[in-house]
């Protein structure tokens, strides 16, 4: 994030004056395999949420391929994540440089940047930067004066969370509904337009210029060995300084919220009640669990799905946990693509239950029903085609499990006959 906050950081001139496109030149002078090896050595794990090593992903491409396509996942839709937005808004050339390096390493001819439809300003910034890069000869027939040719287009989404799933993104790019594909075949073998395809996240690609410039050893020197390199952390909610902060992956949730150079502590008079540390889908932490490390491994020790997008949203003690439950349930109810039964029906059922609980007509058995529905949606991998279903179960399950006393108290305090009245009116 070295150029964020610098005047004119979106322009090629400023980017170059600060050492921009040096890394791309260096990479293009190397053998493509050498670039892949360097990235493998850096153990650059995908920043999009799954944490899969980028170099390994590239290694799945068939050796004898003739056409390769690169998709840049800029469909950042996981609430409350906005680090890609910051990168594209303030440092578009870093993304373009990363894209050039990744495209070169994977021998891609075209790079599609799939950007979520809600980004308007960012779209104009990035498109302008792409234009500049074309004019300067950094994109097009002769990238940086070499014989390597690369076209780069922005493809705008239109409001569908599931298009952030890599095969949903590919379907959407093909002009279809963004329903994730069944795998195998994996995109590396048969992806966009049935060509070998690589999908990488914006933040992942933005790391590449730094890895190429300073070397894999520099990268692995930052943070714990299994979670190497700098990472962008978002923090939002009732904190003093909501924003996006760069750090090694050895900070804790507490540090992210409280450190002066990060969240800066809670707004006056508010206390932490709950934190979703990695985007909603990873699940929730209680105030007693804030010492969790924000790396790729530790979240599992707190019944969370993973690090996710490393975007923390803080919920304060003035917020009713029922509101949180409903907000989360509604998100998945709205965003499920509807392909797989468990996810289509489960998310919408959980949404209806959560809405009823929030409206003051919860039943004790609803809590177990929520847990069982969550279990039926994600008791084992493979229940549905993509991970959205799992992502929907973790927050619901962790909210109900970790905040059960509060939920039970709320249900107990409902006036008698409320449930019956509401159900009768609804049905």
């Amino acid at each position: 994030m070295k150029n964020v906050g610098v005047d004119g950081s979106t322009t090629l001139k400023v980017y170059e004056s600060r050492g921009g496109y040096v890394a791309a030149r260096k990479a293009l002078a190397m053998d493509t395999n050498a670039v892949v090896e360097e990235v493998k050595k850096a153990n650059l794990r995908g920043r999009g949420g799954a944490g899969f090593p980028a170099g390994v992903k590239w290694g799945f491409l068939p050796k004898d391929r003739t056409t390769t396509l690169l998709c840049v996942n800029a469909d950042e839709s996981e609430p409350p994540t906005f680090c890609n937005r910051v990168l594209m808004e303030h440092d578009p050339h870093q993304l373009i440089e990363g894209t050039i390096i990744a495209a070169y390493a994977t021998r891609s001819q075209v790079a599609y940047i799939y950007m979520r439809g809600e980004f308007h300003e960012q779209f104009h910034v990035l498109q302008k930067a792409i234009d500049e890069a074309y004019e300067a000869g950094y994109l097009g027939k002769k990238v940086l004066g070499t014989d390597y040719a690369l076209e780069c287009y922005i493809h705008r989404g239109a409001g569908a969370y599931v298009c952030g799933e890599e095969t949903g993104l590919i379907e959407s790019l093909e002009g279809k509904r963004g329903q994730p594909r069944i795998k195998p075949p994996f995109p590396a073998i048969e992806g966009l337009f049935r060509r070998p395809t690589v999908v990488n996240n914006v933040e992942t690609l933005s790391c590449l210029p730094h890895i190429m410039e300073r070397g894999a050893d520099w990268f692995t020197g930052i943070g714990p060995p299994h979670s190497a390199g700098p990472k962008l952390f978002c923090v939002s909610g009732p904190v003093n300084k909501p924003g996006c902060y760069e750090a090694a992956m050895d900070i804790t949730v507490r540090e992210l919220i409280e450190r002066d150079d990060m969240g800066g502590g809670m707004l006056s008079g508010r206390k932490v009640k709950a934190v979703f540390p990695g985007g909603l889908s990873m699940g929730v932490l209680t105030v007693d669990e804030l010492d969790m490390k924000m790396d790729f491994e530790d979240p599992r020790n707190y019944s969370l799905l993973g690090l996710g997008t490393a975007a923390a949203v803080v919920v304060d003690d003035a917020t009713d946990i029922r509101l949180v439950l409903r907000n989360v349930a509604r998100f998945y109810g709205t965003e499920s693509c509807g392909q797989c039964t468990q996810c289509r029906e489960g998310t919408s059922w959980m949404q209806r239950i959560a809405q009823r609980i929030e409206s003051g007509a919860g039943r004790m058995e609803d809590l177990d029903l929520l847990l069982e529905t969550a279990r039926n949606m994600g008791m084992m991998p493979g229940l549905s085609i993509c991970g959205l279903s799992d992502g929907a179960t973790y927050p619901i399950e962790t909210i109900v499990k970790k905040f059960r006393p509060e939920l039970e108290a709320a249900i107990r305090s409902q006036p008698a006959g409320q449930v019956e009245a509401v159900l009768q009116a609804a049905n």
Partner: protein
Amino acid sequence: MSWKAIDRNQAVVDADAPPLLSEGVREKILSYTHRYETKRAALLPALHLVQNTLGHVSWQAMVEIAALLDIQPSDVFDTLTFYTHFWTHPKGEKVITVCRSLSCEVLGGAAVLDALKARLGIEEHGTSSDGQYSLVTEECLAGCDHAPCMLINEKLHKNVKLDDLERILADGDNDRVDMPRSDLFDAPPVAESKQPASATEDDSRTTDD
């Protein structure tokens, strides 16, 4: 449940109607197809372009887009309705998209939405009687560091406070971002007349709640 069925045999597009999409828009759509291996892949850019031009994607526009991209009108209908940003019926001059993600809700996003509903006299997906504003919500606008936030057309309004609403609504330029734009790709098309929404017409097809 009534026994009445929606009749899908009735045509909604007049086969003899003059083309809705201008030559410029058609050319632009066809120019997108060169970016992809299949013509169909240009569908999302085409829908964006048409919606920006006409204010919505009407049935006739769908038929014309389908013809340009060598697909069936049902394919366009299928894809279009998957995405919440496209609508098949006219909306107000400006569309307000209120974020309802957790970050925004914890910091008062729901109150902003309620205030807008009251101020404009409409529910979600409704259009104000003067045809000026339509109101929708979105799960997350990725502006959580500026919560609560909302979009008016393409402009993101950050840290929206209830007291600011009147000022924001009164500002004639509240829906455009002023910045250099690319003319190499996606240049805004020549302005064509938007079809204004009638206040009563509710876009049921984008209902997402």
